[in-house]
């Protein structure tokens, strides 16, 4: 539960933030803070935001990606959106955030997810290595909305709709 981050030092530095639960205005603050603390420390060239365990997101999630994009850009880094479920992707496409941060679908080996989880547990013992954090984010187990089959065509259809009725 929460946010799990781990560092992967290969040819390029890459940091993946595994976000879980619901992203709204209320929860975005703490998620943002935890990501930024770690980005500040590790200064990765590529920041991957994993949305696979996010079960609700409104435009606060877009703000979160936009904000990280801005910070990464200042240092010449990039942001990637990893594995968003269909309903989360729908919000992203309506906002056109994929123009700033590429949406990628990556098979995350179970072992790596495990590694991230383990690091959270061992966080206390690793001195000077706090590259993993955990944040409490609302999670509603009764509310699994990730299973619907939304194609992006549908999304575009919706986005193009004109239903203005303003007074």
């Amino acid at each position, binding site marked *: 539960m929460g946010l799990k981050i781990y560092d992967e030092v290969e040819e390029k530095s890459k940091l993946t933030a595994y976000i879980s639960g*619901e992203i*709204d*205005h*209320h929860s*975005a603050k703490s998620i*943002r803070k935890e990501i930024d603390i770690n980005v500040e420390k590790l200064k990765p060239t590529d920041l991957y935001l994993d949305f696979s365990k996010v079960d*609700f*997101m*409104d*435009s*606060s999630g*877009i*703000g*979160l990606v*936009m*904000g990280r994009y801005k910070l990464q850009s200042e240092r010449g880094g990039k942001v990637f959106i990893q594995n968003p479920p*269909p*309903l989360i992707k*729908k*919000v992203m496409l*309506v*906002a056109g955030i994929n123009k700033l941060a590429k949406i990628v679908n990556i098979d995350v080996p179970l072992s790596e997810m495990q590694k991230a989880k383990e690091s959270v547990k061992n966080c206390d013992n690793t001195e000077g290595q706090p590259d993993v954090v955990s944040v409490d984010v*609302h999670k*509603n187990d009764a*509310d699994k*909305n990730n*299973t*619907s089959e*939304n194609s992006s065509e549908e999304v575009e259809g*919706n*986005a193009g*709709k004109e*239903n*203005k*009725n*303003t*007074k």
Partner: protein
Amino acid sequence: MPAKKTKILNEIKLSFPSLSENERFSRLAVSGFASQLDPQVDEISDIKTAVSEAVTNSIVHAYKNEIGKIELVARIYEDNVIYIKIKDHGCGIPDIKKAMEPLFTTSPEEERAGLGFAVMESFMDKLKVLSKEGKGTSVILTKKLKTKLD
């Protein structure tokens, strides 16, 4: 979408303070209310997202430096239409047209994307915004849900 004489089949009214904890509460409450229409998963998600945007607007913008009351009315009309009104008595919107422009935000420092109205508009069938400076804002969202027969 509901024409003036469409029959109201069910109605709930909620009133809660503009605490950010209530963003989640309000969308789950509406989601629970809408469930009697037997909506599809993506429809419920659309409604929750739109409600979350509207309530967040009241919390972040209408009651910027204070805690005020938010009133939510949800109705089910004939023909599978859900109606949601989110009303606050906050500062009001001086220029609604401007506020509805995608990416326009008065709170960039808070990382508001300026997409609240754009999301509400694309996820619901209809969006109506009524506002008066110093008096408050009402946002009315409606959506016709698919019936199983469709």
